[in-house]
């Protein structure tokens, strides 16, 4: 369907002006076309442009509109039914706008809160209700899947209003490569327009809680793109990560139950990870990878120093991974060169799941994230370690009066 809405042919008036009669013109185009022909500013050089004419085509527009509404309702209903039958349920979109709402809490009186920032593991594996039950306060979740926390940490370091506690999740392949799937979240939060804020509010209150298909994984182009298209010779085939989680309004997020209940979907998710485990020509050389990791650690070290300067308590956490994913991480990002170096350079404390038996033995269906029930168990275990070894729990009346961090 085109979106230009006018013809470039000259009107009868112009033809007459150029010496052709209207009769000549009628032999060229039927009168029906003339009814909708019109000049534009392109046809009238150097003169005042008149009020435009915009005729409405003759159609039973009332009946058409009714038909459109009925048909559209049926189509949307069918699309919604299809995805619900696939197992999808409505959840809140994990957008930059949603992240911004949580980020703004820090500047709106919750600067002393516990803030979580990391990639998908800290995001899916740490359950806010469990933490709240144990701590008395619900943390602010600022993690983003597939996204290095470095930029967010730097943003918090530049914010004097943040004086609370910061847990930084470390997923080695994301953290030490500096990869950012959701780049620019902090910048977006600071520059979000009133229109974007209103749009976010409308969407998370009136659209997302109702429609299951409102998820990027089921957007038209994404669905079409993952059909079995013929492979182009020489072009590496790479399947994008599929839907893995469900998010709530305060960004409490958990692994999608389909990964537990559907072996096929689980295997597909594992195969998608496996793509990363295979070396490609586009991978950085070991020297380049080490250089990048060092840069990330150095930047993080500066940010941590700034945070500590204004009283923030920082703790790194390496959540569990298993199976082929863990083997890949150990191969590409050996602990000594990454995790140990990070703690040494930043001087901040850290919890590595391999160092604590209570953080091991969880079920991670696709080797990278825990099921919801396991995440709840993990959160309780992690909180226990933190409150026992690093930070004293908040007394009910006067929080943050003491600190036992090493």
């Amino acid at each position: 369907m085109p979106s230009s809405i006018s013809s470039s042919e000259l009107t009868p008036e112009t033809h007459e002006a150029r010496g052709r009669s209207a009769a000549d013109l009628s032999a060229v185009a039927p009168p029906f076309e003339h009814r909708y022909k019109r000049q534009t500013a392109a046809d009238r050089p150097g003169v005042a442009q008149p009020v435009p004419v915009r005729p409405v085509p003759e159609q039973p527009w009332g009946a058409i509109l009714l038909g459109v509404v009925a048909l559209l309702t049926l189509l949307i209903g069918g699309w919604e039914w299809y995805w619900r039958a696939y197992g999808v349920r409505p959840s809140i979109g994990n957008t930059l706008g949603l992240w911004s709402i949580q980020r703004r809490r820090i500047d709106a009186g919750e600067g002393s809160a516990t803030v979580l920032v990391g990639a998908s593991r800290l995001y899916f594996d740490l359950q806010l209700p469990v933490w709240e039950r144990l701590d008395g306060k619900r943390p602010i979740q600022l993690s983003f899947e597939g996204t290095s926390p470095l930029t967010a940490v730097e943003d918090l370091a530049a914010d004097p209003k943040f004086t609370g506690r910061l847990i930084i999740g470390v997923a080695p392949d994301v953290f030490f490569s500096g990869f950012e799937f959701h780049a620019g979240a902090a910048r977006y939060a600071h520059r979000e327009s009133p229109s974007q804020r209103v749009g976010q509010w409308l969407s998370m209150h009136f659209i997302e809680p109702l429609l299951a298909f409102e998820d990027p994984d089921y957007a038209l182009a994404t669905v079409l793109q993952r059909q079995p298209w013929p492979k182009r010779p020489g072009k590496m085939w790479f399947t994008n990560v599929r839907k893995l989680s469900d998010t709530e309004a305060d960004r409490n997020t958990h692994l999608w139950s389909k990964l537990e209940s559907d072996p096929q979907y689980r295997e597909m998710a594992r195969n998608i990870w496996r793509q990363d485990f295979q070396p490609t020509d586009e991978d950085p050389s070991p020297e380049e990878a080490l250089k990048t990791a060092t840069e990330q650690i150095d930047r993080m070290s500066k940010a941590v120093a700034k945070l500590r300067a204004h009283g923030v308590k920082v703790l790194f956490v390496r959540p569990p991974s298993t199976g082929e994913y863990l083997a890949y991480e150990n191969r590409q990002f050996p602990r000594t060169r990454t995790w140990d170096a990070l703690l040494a350079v930043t001087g901040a404390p850290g919890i590595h799941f391999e160092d604590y038996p209570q953080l091991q033995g969880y079920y991670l269906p696709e080797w990278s994230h825990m099921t919801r029930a396991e995440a709840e168990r993990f959160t309780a275990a992690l909180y226990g370690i933190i409150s026992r070894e690093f930070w004293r729990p908040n007394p009910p009346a006067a929080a943050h009066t003491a600190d036992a961090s090493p």
Partner: protein
Amino acid sequence: MVFNSLTFVVFFACVLGVHSLPLPWTTKKINLLIASYLFYSAWNPPFVILLWVSTVIDWYAAQGLVKARRATARHAWMMLSVIANLGMLGYFKYGQFLLDNFTALMGALGIAYHPAHYDIVLPVGISFYTFATMSYTLDVYLRRAAPARNLLDYALFVTFFPHLVAGPIMRPTELVPQFAKPRRASAEQLRFGLMLMTLGLFNKIVLADSFLARAAERVYDGNSMPGTLDAWAGTLAFSAQIFCDFAGYSTTAIGAALCLGFAMPDNFRFSYAAVGFSDFWRRWHITLSSWLRDYLYIPLGGNRHGARRTYVALMVTMLLGGLWHGANWTFVAWGGLHGLYLAVERVVRARFVNYRPGPIVFVLLGLLTYTLVNITWVFFRAKTFGKAWLVLRGMFGQNSAARPILSTFYLASVAAIVGCLVLTHWLMRARTLESVVARVPALAMCLVWALMAFAIIIAQGTGSAFIYFQF
């Protein structure tokens, strides 16, 4: 706010509701003015001040023009308007560009100049509304139009939200008279207006954003060297993207105005069926090209002072037209190429005055025009000349070491959309959308409209800005 956002859906529903209330016409106009300021301030509230400044300066300049008795006084009032508007545009849009070029020039002369950081946010749509307000004082200066009868009508002309941020660039004589007496859309206008809005948003959200933009980004924003197929696919994708994006915006704007009972001019006329470059500019961004023609090319002498002066006027107009699109030399190169094309066409036409092409040659000339237009898009899309050369080399088979960039899905979707788009433009080049819509059976119309609306919803657009907002 952008048209392709939930915020706009709610905003527009409220505006339609309020506009249909049985209120005095002046009250309705005040409501529209307030709504338009809300529409603009939804991006960045402080920038409404710029809109006010532009409005007030041109209002008083036009008043001064009418009252002035001496030619020098008239000239002075006109210059006040031009300098104020271009000054504002220059500061916000070209400040960084000028500073960068000055620094580079100093560097070339061996002077290490380190200017202070120039952190200015470009007010959205500033290029559009400054041109609209300038056309007001210029039309009064050129005695083509009388000034608006009251400030309310004039302020509403400048601010009317459907055209405010990305055109069509309205002339005062097109819109101000529409505010003179009460207007309310008929039921048919409202429904057809909604259909136009659906069509415009389908172009933007589904075709431009969901399919074409991604293919263009992979070729133009990635680090890989494109081969012939990828370079052409990326460029064709962008040529279709910018059409669907911008013509989509114009169509949505025209539909929104029609829903309120106002008529706005056409901005595109099946541009990719143009035969020749003068024809292209009669079909592409008509309100800008006619603005540049009326307020720049003709005052520069147009074709009234011999061939040499004509070519100079043509090149100056197209170079400045290119710069209007963005503060980057690549845009100037884009405008310069179009200026060159127009000049060459002028020479060829003068030489073959009596030549009338047959149908096959006509189509071939059209395809040649389309191909050459696509080459100009490379400079428009590439962020640097280096990238532009890389893509151009690819298009002409010079990147032998290139590896495939676009997957079969992208190649197929670009081929399908570009093919349909160009074919549609050729089929409709002598028609109007209205004439085609009037002939379509009602059932088919219903089906097409519903499918477009459905595609918009399931495409799940992210509310990305229209390309022309940055201009």
